[in-house]
Protein backbone atom coordinates (compact mmCIF):
# COMPACT_ATOMS: atom_id res chain seq x y z
CA UNK A 1 0.00 0.00 0.00
CA UNK A 2 3.06 2.17 -0.14
CA UNK A 3 2.14 3.49 -3.51
CA UNK A 4 -1.09 4.93 -2.22
CA UNK A 5 0.73 7.37 0.00
CA UNK A 6 3.09 8.26 -2.76
CA UNK A 7 0.83 8.38 -5.78
CA UNK A 8 -0.82 11.70 -5.12
CA UNK A 9 2.21 13.97 -4.83
CA UNK A 10 4.31 12.14 -7.37
CA UNK A 11 2.22 12.93 -10.37
CA UNK A 12 3.59 16.08 -11.83
CA UNK A 13 3.32 16.68 -15.48
CA UNK A 14 4.54 20.17 -16.22
CA UNK A 15 2.43 22.68 -18.05
CA UNK A 16 -1.18 23.65 -17.90
CA UNK A 17 -2.36 20.09 -18.48
CA UNK A 18 -1.26 19.00 -15.01
CA UNK A 19 -4.25 17.07 -13.89
CA UNK A 20 -4.35 17.43 -10.14
CA UNK A 21 -4.08 13.76 -9.41
CA UNK A 22 -6.35 13.65 -6.45
CA UNK A 23 -8.88 16.24 -7.42
CA UNK A 24 -9.92 14.57 -10.67
CA UNK A 25 -9.80 17.88 -12.40
CA UNK A 26 -11.80 18.53 -15.50
CA UNK A 27 -10.45 20.85 -18.11
CA UNK A 28 -12.27 23.63 -19.74
CA UNK A 29 -11.62 24.68 -23.23
CA UNK A 30 -12.81 27.80 -24.98
CA UNK A 31 -13.15 28.48 -28.69
CA UNK A 32 -9.44 29.21 -28.97
CA UNK A 33 -8.37 25.94 -27.43
CA UNK A 34 -7.03 27.47 -24.24
CA UNK A 35 -7.18 24.94 -21.48
CA UNK A 36 -7.59 25.37 -17.78
CA UNK A 37 -7.79 22.80 -15.02
CA UNK A 38 -10.95 22.93 -13.03
CA UNK A 39 -11.05 22.54 -9.32
CA UNK A 40 -13.97 21.79 -7.12
CA UNK A 41 -13.01 24.39 -4.57
CA UNK A 42 -10.29 26.87 -3.60
CA UNK A 43 -8.66 24.37 -1.25
CA UNK A 44 -8.24 21.88 -4.10
CA UNK A 45 -6.70 24.59 -6.25
CA UNK A 46 -4.27 25.63 -3.51
CA UNK A 47 -3.27 22.05 -2.76
CA UNK A 48 -2.61 21.48 -6.45
CA UNK A 49 -0.42 24.60 -6.63
CA UNK A 50 1.49 23.46 -3.55
CA UNK A 51 1.95 19.91 -4.87
CA UNK A 52 3.08 21.07 -8.25
CA UNK A 53 5.96 22.95 -6.71
CA UNK A 54 6.86 20.45 -4.02
CA UNK A 55 6.49 23.09 -1.37
CA UNK A 56 6.58 22.13 2.26
CA UNK A 57 3.08 22.73 3.55
CA UNK A 58 4.26 24.29 6.81
CA UNK A 59 6.36 26.86 4.96
CA UNK A 60 4.25 28.12 2.08
CA UNK A 61 5.82 30.98 0.09
CA UNK A 62 2.65 32.99 0.42
CA UNK A 63 3.57 35.74 -2.05
CA UNK A 64 4.23 33.44 -4.99
CA UNK A 65 1.31 31.13 -4.20
CA UNK A 66 -1.01 34.15 -3.99
CA UNK A 67 0.33 35.32 -7.34
CA UNK A 68 -0.34 31.94 -8.96
CA UNK A 69 -3.74 31.71 -7.32
CA UNK A 70 -4.77 35.12 -8.66
CA UNK A 71 -3.35 34.21 -12.04
CA UNK A 72 -5.60 31.15 -12.13
CA UNK A 73 -8.60 33.31 -11.26
CA UNK A 74 -7.73 35.76 -14.06
CA UNK A 75 -7.41 32.94 -16.59
CA UNK A 76 -10.71 31.49 -15.48
CA UNK A 77 -12.33 34.87 -15.92
CA UNK A 78 -10.92 35.17 -19.43
CA UNK A 79 -12.50 31.83 -20.25
CA UNK A 80 -15.79 32.98 -18.79
CA UNK A 81 -15.74 30.32 -16.11
CA UNK A 82 -17.80 31.24 -13.11
CA UNK A 83 -15.76 30.02 -10.18
CA UNK A 84 -18.09 31.06 -7.41
CA UNK A 85 -17.72 33.15 -4.31
CA UNK A 86 -15.57 30.78 -2.33
CA UNK A 87 -12.69 31.26 -4.79
CA UNK A 88 -12.88 35.03 -4.41
CA UNK A 89 -13.09 34.71 -0.65
CA UNK A 90 -9.93 32.60 -0.62
CA UNK A 91 -8.16 35.19 -2.77
CA UNK A 92 -8.99 37.81 -0.14
CA UNK A 93 -7.75 35.50 2.61
CA UNK A 94 -4.45 34.97 0.78
CA UNK A 95 -3.93 38.68 0.26
CA UNK A 96 -4.73 39.31 3.90
CA UNK A 97 -2.16 36.71 5.01
CA UNK A 98 0.36 38.19 2.60
CA UNK A 99 -0.06 41.67 4.06
CA UNK A 100 0.19 40.35 7.61
CA UNK A 101 3.45 38.61 6.69
CA UNK A 102 4.87 41.99 5.72
CA UNK A 103 4.16 43.55 9.09
CA UNK A 104 6.94 43.40 11.66
CA UNK A 105 6.12 41.10 14.56
CA UNK A 106 4.75 42.62 17.73
CA UNK A 107 7.78 43.27 19.96
CA UNK A 108 5.65 42.99 23.09
CA UNK A 109 4.67 39.37 22.38
CA UNK A 110 7.37 36.82 23.27
CA UNK A 111 8.79 35.05 20.27
CA UNK A 112 7.40 31.61 21.06
CA UNK A 113 3.89 33.08 21.24
CA UNK A 114 4.14 34.78 17.88
CA UNK A 115 1.63 33.28 15.53
CA UNK A 116 2.47 32.65 11.93
CA UNK A 117 -0.29 34.32 9.87
CA UNK A 118 -0.29 31.23 7.66
CA UNK A 119 -1.16 28.84 10.50
CA UNK A 120 -4.93 28.84 10.05
CA UNK A 121 -4.67 28.29 6.33
CA UNK A 122 -2.15 25.48 6.75
CA UNK A 123 -4.47 23.83 9.26
CA UNK A 124 -7.38 24.02 6.84
CA UNK A 125 -5.29 22.66 3.98
CA UNK A 126 -4.08 19.70 6.02
CA UNK A 127 -7.61 19.05 7.27
CA UNK A 128 -8.82 19.05 3.69
CA UNK A 129 -5.98 16.86 2.48
CA UNK A 130 -6.88 14.30 5.15
CA UNK A 131 -10.24 13.82 3.51
CA UNK A 132 -8.78 13.81 0.02
CA UNK A 133 -6.76 10.82 1.27
CA UNK A 134 -9.85 9.33 2.88
CA UNK A 135 -11.73 9.66 -0.42
CA UNK A 136 -8.95 7.74 -2.19
CA UNK A 137 -9.08 5.08 0.48
CA UNK A 138 -12.86 4.73 0.10
CA UNK A 139 -12.50 4.54 -3.66
CA UNK A 140 -10.11 1.62 -3.31
CA UNK A 141 -12.38 -0.15 -0.86
CA UNK A 142 -15.29 0.28 -3.23
CA UNK A 143 -13.20 -1.05 -6.10
CA UNK A 144 -12.50 -4.24 -4.16
CA UNK A 145 -16.19 -4.61 -3.36
CA UNK A 146 -17.11 -4.10 -6.99
CA UNK A 147 -14.98 -7.07 -7.90
CA UNK A 148 -16.67 -9.54 -5.63
CA UNK A 149 -19.92 -11.33 -6.33
CA UNK A 150 -22.49 -12.81 -4.06
CA UNK A 151 -24.96 -15.39 -5.26
CA UNK A 152 -28.04 -14.04 -7.08
CA UNK A 153 -30.69 -12.85 -4.69
CA UNK A 154 -33.69 -15.06 -4.03
CA UNK A 155 -36.73 -12.85 -4.20
CA UNK A 156 -38.75 -14.43 -1.44
CA UNK A 157 -36.26 -15.15 1.23
CA UNK A 158 -37.93 -14.42 4.56
CA UNK A 159 -37.34 -10.99 5.92
CA UNK A 160 -34.38 -11.50 8.21
CA UNK A 161 -33.63 -7.88 8.54
CA UNK A 162 -35.39 -6.01 11.26
CA UNK A 163 -33.10 -3.04 11.39
CA UNK A 164 -34.61 0.26 10.41
CA UNK A 165 -31.95 1.19 7.89
CA UNK A 166 -33.01 -1.10 5.12
CA UNK A 167 -36.55 -0.09 5.88
CA UNK A 168 -37.93 3.12 4.48
CA UNK A 169 -36.53 6.36 5.85
CA UNK A 170 -38.24 9.67 6.45
CA UNK A 171 -36.70 11.05 3.29
CA UNK A 172 -38.27 8.40 1.05
CA UNK A 173 -41.57 8.95 2.75
CA UNK A 174 -41.49 12.69 2.33
CA UNK A 175 -40.38 12.29 -1.27
CA UNK A 176 -43.35 10.05 -2.05
CA UNK A 177 -45.67 12.41 -0.25
CA UNK A 178 -44.30 15.39 -2.17
CA UNK A 179 -44.93 13.62 -5.46
CA UNK A 180 -48.49 12.81 -4.47
CA UNK A 181 -49.12 16.39 -3.35
CA UNK A 182 -47.71 17.63 -6.62
CA UNK A 183 -50.09 15.43 -8.58
CA UNK A 184 -52.97 16.37 -6.28
CA UNK A 185 -52.31 20.02 -7.08
CA UNK A 186 -52.72 19.33 -10.77
CA UNK A 187 -56.02 17.54 -10.63
CA UNK A 188 -59.51 18.82 -9.88
CA UNK A 189 -60.25 18.54 -6.21
CA UNK A 190 -63.65 17.38 -5.12
CA UNK A 191 -63.13 18.27 -1.53
CA UNK A 192 -66.29 19.00 0.38
CA UNK A 193 -66.20 21.89 2.79
CA UNK A 194 -66.32 20.76 6.39
CA UNK A 195 -65.63 17.18 5.38
CA UNK A 196 -64.95 15.12 8.46
CA UNK A 197 -61.42 13.80 8.01
CA UNK A 198 -59.60 13.07 11.25
CA UNK A 199 -56.32 11.38 11.89
CA UNK A 200 -58.11 8.86 14.09
CA UNK A 201 -60.57 8.01 11.33
CA UNK A 202 -57.72 7.60 8.87
CA UNK A 203 -56.04 5.18 11.28
CA UNK A 204 -59.19 3.08 11.26
CA UNK A 205 -59.29 3.39 7.49
CA UNK A 206 -55.70 2.15 7.10
CA UNK A 207 -56.38 -0.67 9.53
CA UNK A 208 -59.37 -1.88 7.53
CA UNK A 209 -57.49 -1.49 4.28
CA UNK A 210 -54.62 -3.65 5.53
CA UNK A 211 -57.02 -6.25 6.86
CA UNK A 212 -58.90 -6.46 3.58
CA UNK A 213 -55.85 -6.41 1.34
CA UNK A 214 -53.87 -9.25 2.78
CA UNK A 215 -51.66 -7.18 5.02
CA UNK A 216 -49.82 -5.10 2.45
CA UNK A 217 -50.72 -2.07 0.33
CA UNK A 218 -48.71 0.26 -1.83
CA UNK A 219 -48.13 3.65 -0.28
CA UNK A 220 -48.72 5.67 -3.42
CA UNK A 221 -51.95 3.73 -4.08
CA UNK A 222 -53.23 4.71 -0.67
CA UNK A 223 -52.32 8.34 -1.21
CA UNK A 224 -53.87 8.40 -4.68
CA UNK A 225 -57.17 7.16 -3.29
CA UNK A 226 -57.56 10.19 -1.00
CA UNK A 227 -60.25 12.58 -2.21
CA UNK A 228 -58.56 15.84 -1.24
CA UNK A 229 -55.64 17.55 0.41
CA UNK A 230 -57.13 17.38 3.89
CA UNK A 231 -57.64 13.65 3.55
CA UNK A 232 -54.11 13.29 2.20
CA UNK A 233 -52.57 15.10 5.12
CA UNK A 234 -54.64 13.21 7.67
CA UNK A 235 -53.67 9.90 6.03
CA UNK A 236 -50.01 10.86 6.05
CA UNK A 237 -50.18 11.74 9.76
CA UNK A 238 -52.13 8.56 10.49
CA UNK A 239 -49.43 6.55 8.77
CA UNK A 240 -46.70 8.18 10.82
CA UNK A 241 -48.65 7.42 13.99
CA UNK A 242 -49.07 3.78 12.98
CA UNK A 243 -45.35 3.45 12.31
CA UNK A 244 -44.62 5.06 15.66
CA UNK A 245 -46.91 2.60 17.43
CA UNK A 246 -45.30 -0.32 15.56
CA UNK A 247 -48.62 -1.31 14.00
CA UNK A 248 -47.22 -1.15 10.47
CA UNK A 249 -43.83 -1.16 8.75
CA UNK A 250 -42.83 0.57 5.55
CA UNK A 251 -40.66 -1.37 3.16
CA UNK A 252 -38.98 -0.70 -0.10
CA UNK A 253 -37.80 -3.54 -2.32
CA UNK A 254 -35.10 -1.55 -3.96
CA UNK A 255 -33.59 1.90 -4.06
CA UNK A 256 -36.16 4.50 -5.25
CA UNK A 257 -38.63 1.60 -5.49
CA UNK A 258 -42.27 1.43 -4.57
CA UNK A 259 -42.95 1.82 -0.85
CA UNK A 260 -45.24 -0.82 0.65
CA UNK A 261 -47.18 -0.56 3.91
CA UNK A 262 -47.21 -3.88 5.68
CA UNK A 263 -48.69 -5.20 8.91
CA UNK A 264 -46.11 -5.29 11.66
CA UNK A 265 -46.11 -8.40 13.80
CA UNK A 266 -47.44 -6.19 16.59
CA UNK A 267 -50.39 -5.13 14.41
CA UNK A 268 -53.07 -7.05 16.31
CA UNK A 269 -51.60 -6.23 19.71
CA UNK A 270 -51.52 -2.53 18.92
CA UNK A 271 -55.10 -2.45 17.72
CA UNK A 272 -56.19 -4.41 20.80
CA UNK A 273 -55.38 -1.37 22.93
CA UNK A 274 -57.89 1.23 21.93
CA UNK A 275 -56.82 3.81 24.50
CA UNK A 276 -53.72 4.68 22.52
CA UNK A 277 -55.94 5.75 19.63
CA UNK A 278 -57.98 8.02 21.87
CA UNK A 279 -54.69 9.58 22.92
CA UNK A 280 -53.80 10.17 19.27
CA UNK A 281 -57.18 11.75 18.62
CA UNK A 282 -56.76 14.04 21.63
CA UNK A 283 -53.30 15.09 20.46
CA UNK A 284 -54.71 16.26 17.18
CA UNK A 285 -57.59 17.97 18.97
CA UNK A 286 -60.16 15.75 17.33
Amino acid at each position, binding site marked *: *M*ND*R*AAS*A*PDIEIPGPETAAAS*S*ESVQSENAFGVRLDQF*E*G*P*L*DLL*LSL*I*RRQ*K*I*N*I*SDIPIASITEQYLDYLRRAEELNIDL*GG*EFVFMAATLIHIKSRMLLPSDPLVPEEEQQDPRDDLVK*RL*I*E*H*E*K*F*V*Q*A*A*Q*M*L*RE*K*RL*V*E*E*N*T*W*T*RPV*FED*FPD*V*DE*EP*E*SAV*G*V*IDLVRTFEKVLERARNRPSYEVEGEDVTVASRIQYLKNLLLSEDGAVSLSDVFERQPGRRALLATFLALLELVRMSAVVLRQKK*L*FGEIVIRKHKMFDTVFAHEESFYAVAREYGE
Partner: protein
Amino acid sequence: MSAQQQLPGIDPGEKRRRALLEAIIYAAEEPLTAAQISKGLDVPLDQVEADLRALMEESASDKRGIEIRKVAKGYKMSTKAEHHDGVRKFVKTLRPKFRLSLPALETLAVVAYKQPVTIPEIQAVRGVNSTGVVSTLLNRKLITTAGRKAVIGRPMQYRTTKDFLIQFGLSDLTELPTLKELEELGRSALGEVEPAGNTQEPEHAEAAVE
Protein backbone atom coordinates in the same frame (compact mmCIF):
# COMPACT_ATOMS: atom_id res chain seq x y z
CA MET B 1 -17.43 -42.36 11.72
CA SER B 2 -14.58 -43.17 14.03
CA ALA B 3 -13.06 -40.55 16.25
CA GLN B 4 -9.78 -40.72 14.35
CA GLN B 5 -11.37 -39.40 11.19
CA GLN B 6 -12.48 -36.21 12.92
CA LEU B 7 -10.31 -33.17 13.13
CA PRO B 8 -9.15 -32.68 16.68
CA GLY B 9 -11.77 -30.86 18.73
CA ILE B 10 -14.56 -31.10 16.20
CA ASP B 11 -17.40 -33.40 17.09
CA PRO B 12 -19.92 -34.47 14.43
CA GLY B 13 -22.57 -32.11 15.82
CA GLU B 14 -20.23 -29.16 15.53
CA LYS B 15 -19.25 -30.10 12.00
CA ARG B 16 -22.88 -30.26 11.00
CA ARG B 17 -23.60 -26.93 12.62
CA ARG B 18 -20.76 -25.26 10.76
CA ALA B 19 -22.03 -26.67 7.50
CA LEU B 20 -25.48 -25.31 8.30
CA LEU B 21 -24.04 -21.87 9.13
CA GLU B 22 -22.26 -21.85 5.80
CA ALA B 23 -25.52 -22.67 4.05
CA ILE B 24 -27.39 -19.94 5.90
CA ILE B 25 -24.82 -17.28 5.10
CA TYR B 26 -24.94 -18.33 1.47
CA ALA B 27 -28.70 -17.99 1.30
CA ALA B 28 -29.19 -14.80 3.30
CA GLU B 29 -29.80 -11.60 1.38
CA GLU B 30 -28.01 -9.30 3.77
CA PRO B 31 -25.05 -9.85 6.04
CA LEU B 32 -26.40 -11.79 9.03
CA THR B 33 -25.06 -11.03 12.49
CA ALA B 34 -23.95 -13.75 14.85
CA ALA B 35 -26.79 -12.67 17.17
CA GLN B 36 -29.40 -13.15 14.45
CA ILE B 37 -28.08 -16.62 13.63
CA SER B 38 -27.86 -17.55 17.30
CA LYS B 39 -31.45 -16.47 17.86
CA GLY B 40 -32.75 -18.15 14.73
CA LEU B 41 -31.06 -21.49 15.38
CA ASP B 42 -31.30 -21.35 19.15
CA VAL B 43 -27.59 -21.98 19.51
CA PRO B 44 -25.54 -20.07 22.12
CA LEU B 45 -23.97 -16.92 20.74
CA ASP B 46 -20.39 -17.78 21.68
CA GLN B 47 -20.71 -21.08 19.86
CA VAL B 48 -21.99 -19.36 16.74
CA GLU B 49 -19.16 -16.87 16.93
CA ALA B 50 -16.56 -19.61 17.31
CA ASP B 51 -18.04 -21.48 14.35
CA LEU B 52 -18.06 -18.36 12.23
CA ARG B 53 -14.44 -17.65 13.05
CA ALA B 54 -13.54 -21.19 12.01
CA LEU B 55 -15.51 -20.85 8.78
CA MET B 56 -13.82 -17.53 7.99
CA GLU B 57 -10.39 -19.01 8.60
CA GLU B 58 -11.17 -22.00 6.42
CA SER B 59 -12.49 -19.89 3.56
CA ALA B 60 -9.52 -17.53 3.68
CA SER B 61 -7.29 -20.33 2.38
CA ASP B 62 -5.86 -19.91 -1.12
CA LYS B 63 -7.55 -23.15 -2.09
CA ARG B 64 -10.96 -21.49 -1.87
CA GLY B 65 -12.51 -19.03 -4.32
CA ILE B 66 -15.34 -18.00 -2.06
CA GLU B 67 -14.84 -16.39 1.29
CA ILE B 68 -16.88 -15.46 4.32
CA ARG B 69 -16.18 -11.94 5.45
CA LYS B 70 -17.41 -9.68 8.19
CA VAL B 71 -19.35 -6.83 6.64
CA ALA B 72 -21.56 -4.31 8.44
CA LYS B 73 -21.20 -6.31 11.68
CA GLY B 74 -22.64 -9.37 9.92
CA TYR B 75 -21.28 -12.19 7.83
CA LYS B 76 -21.42 -12.36 4.08
CA MET B 77 -20.24 -14.84 1.49
CA SER B 78 -18.75 -13.63 -1.75
CA THR B 79 -16.23 -14.52 -4.41
CA LYS B 80 -12.73 -13.32 -3.70
CA ALA B 81 -11.78 -10.05 -5.36
CA GLU B 82 -8.54 -11.47 -6.73
CA HIS B 83 -10.52 -13.70 -9.11
CA HIS B 84 -12.57 -10.85 -10.56
CA ASP B 85 -11.18 -11.13 -14.09
CA GLY B 86 -12.10 -14.76 -14.47
CA VAL B 87 -15.44 -14.51 -12.69
CA ARG B 88 -16.54 -11.50 -14.72
CA LYS B 89 -16.51 -13.53 -17.93
CA PHE B 90 -19.29 -15.72 -16.57
CA VAL B 91 -21.44 -13.15 -14.85
CA LYS B 92 -24.45 -12.50 -17.06
CA THR B 93 -26.12 -9.64 -15.30
CA LEU B 94 -23.54 -7.11 -14.37
CA ARG B 95 -24.73 -5.00 -11.53
CA PRO B 96 -25.37 -1.43 -12.51
CA LYS B 97 -22.12 0.28 -11.73
CA PHE B 98 -22.35 2.79 -9.04
CA ARG B 99 -19.36 5.04 -9.17
CA LEU B 100 -19.10 8.00 -6.92
CA SER B 101 -17.21 11.08 -8.01
CA LEU B 102 -14.27 12.18 -5.90
CA PRO B 103 -16.24 15.11 -4.42
CA ALA B 104 -18.93 12.62 -3.40
CA LEU B 105 -16.38 10.22 -1.92
CA GLU B 106 -14.73 13.09 -0.09
CA THR B 107 -18.05 14.23 1.36
CA LEU B 108 -18.85 10.65 2.33
CA ALA B 109 -15.49 10.44 4.08
CA VAL B 110 -16.20 13.64 6.02
CA VAL B 111 -19.55 12.23 7.16
CA ALA B 112 -17.97 8.86 8.05
CA TYR B 113 -15.31 10.45 10.22
CA LYS B 114 -17.20 13.33 11.76
CA GLN B 115 -20.68 11.93 12.21
CA PRO B 116 -23.09 13.20 13.23
CA VAL B 117 -22.18 16.18 11.09
CA THR B 118 -24.09 19.13 9.62
CA ILE B 119 -23.79 20.51 6.08
CA PRO B 120 -22.04 23.71 7.28
CA GLU B 121 -19.49 21.53 9.07
CA ILE B 122 -18.92 19.48 5.91
CA GLN B 123 -18.47 22.68 3.93
CA ALA B 124 -15.96 24.01 6.43
CA VAL B 125 -13.73 21.02 5.73
CA ARG B 126 -14.25 20.91 2.00
CA GLY B 127 -14.23 24.65 1.40
CA VAL B 128 -17.00 24.32 -1.13
CA ASN B 129 -20.78 24.12 -1.22
CA SER B 130 -21.75 20.53 -0.51
CA THR B 131 -25.56 20.52 -0.52
CA GLY B 132 -25.82 18.79 -3.90
CA VAL B 133 -23.36 16.03 -3.03
CA VAL B 134 -25.09 15.43 0.30
CA SER B 135 -28.40 14.91 -1.46
CA THR B 136 -26.77 12.47 -3.90
CA LEU B 137 -25.44 10.48 -0.95
CA LEU B 138 -28.86 10.61 0.73
CA ASN B 139 -30.50 9.30 -2.44
CA ARG B 140 -27.99 6.48 -2.65
CA LYS B 141 -28.76 5.68 1.01
CA LEU B 142 -25.10 5.87 1.91
CA ILE B 143 -25.90 8.51 4.50
CA THR B 144 -29.04 9.34 6.42
CA THR B 145 -30.30 12.02 8.75
CA ALA B 146 -29.30 11.90 12.39
CA GLY B 147 -31.50 14.44 14.12
CA ARG B 148 -30.97 18.15 14.44
CA LYS B 149 -28.07 19.81 16.15
CA ALA B 150 -28.96 21.85 19.22
CA VAL B 151 -27.45 25.09 17.93
CA ILE B 152 -28.97 28.20 16.38
CA GLY B 153 -30.90 27.29 13.26
CA ARG B 154 -31.12 23.64 14.36
CA PRO B 155 -29.29 22.31 11.29
CA MET B 156 -29.88 18.69 10.23
CA GLN B 157 -27.11 16.25 11.06
CA TYR B 158 -26.05 13.30 8.93
CA ARG B 159 -24.46 9.91 9.53
CA THR B 160 -23.44 6.94 7.41
CA THR B 161 -25.76 3.93 6.99
CA LYS B 162 -25.42 0.19 7.08
CA ASP B 163 -25.55 0.32 3.27
CA PHE B 164 -22.38 2.39 3.37
CA LEU B 165 -20.60 -0.37 5.31
CA ILE B 166 -21.91 -3.00 2.89
CA GLN B 167 -21.02 -1.10 -0.29
CA PHE B 168 -17.51 -0.40 0.95
CA GLY B 169 -16.96 -3.84 2.50
CA LEU B 170 -16.42 -2.54 6.01
CA SER B 171 -17.14 -4.56 9.10
CA ASP B 172 -17.71 -1.41 11.11
CA LEU B 173 -16.47 2.18 11.22
CA THR B 174 -13.45 1.33 13.36
CA GLU B 175 -12.05 -0.52 10.36
CA LEU B 176 -11.31 2.81 8.69
CA PRO B 177 -7.85 4.28 9.25
CA THR B 178 -7.81 6.75 12.13
CA LEU B 179 -7.84 10.50 11.52
CA LYS B 180 -4.29 10.62 12.81
CA GLU B 181 -3.18 8.09 10.22
CA LEU B 182 -4.96 10.08 7.54
CA GLU B 183 -3.21 13.23 8.68
CA GLU B 184 0.16 11.53 8.33
CA LEU B 185 -0.79 10.34 4.86
CA GLY B 186 -1.92 13.84 4.01
CA ARG B 187 1.20 15.51 5.34
CA SER B 188 3.48 13.16 3.47
CA ALA B 189 1.36 13.67 0.35
CA LEU B 190 1.95 17.38 0.75
CA GLY B 191 5.69 16.86 0.86
CA GLU B 192 6.20 17.18 4.55
CA VAL B 193 8.85 14.66 5.46
CA GLU B 194 8.91 15.06 9.22
CA PRO B 195 5.42 15.25 10.66
CA ALA B 196 5.55 18.19 13.03
CA GLY B 197 5.28 17.18 16.68
CA ASN B 198 4.71 13.61 15.76
CA THR B 199 6.98 10.90 17.03
CA GLN B 200 5.17 8.04 15.34
CA GLU B 201 7.08 6.22 12.64
CA PRO B 202 5.59 6.80 9.20
CA GLU B 203 5.55 3.01 8.60
CA HIS B 204 2.91 2.76 11.29
CA ALA B 205 0.43 4.78 9.40
CA GLU B 206 0.90 2.80 6.25
CA ALA B 207 0.73 -0.54 7.99
CA ALA B 208 -2.50 0.42 9.67
CA VAL B 209 -4.09 1.47 6.40
CA GLU B 210 -3.38 -1.92 4.91
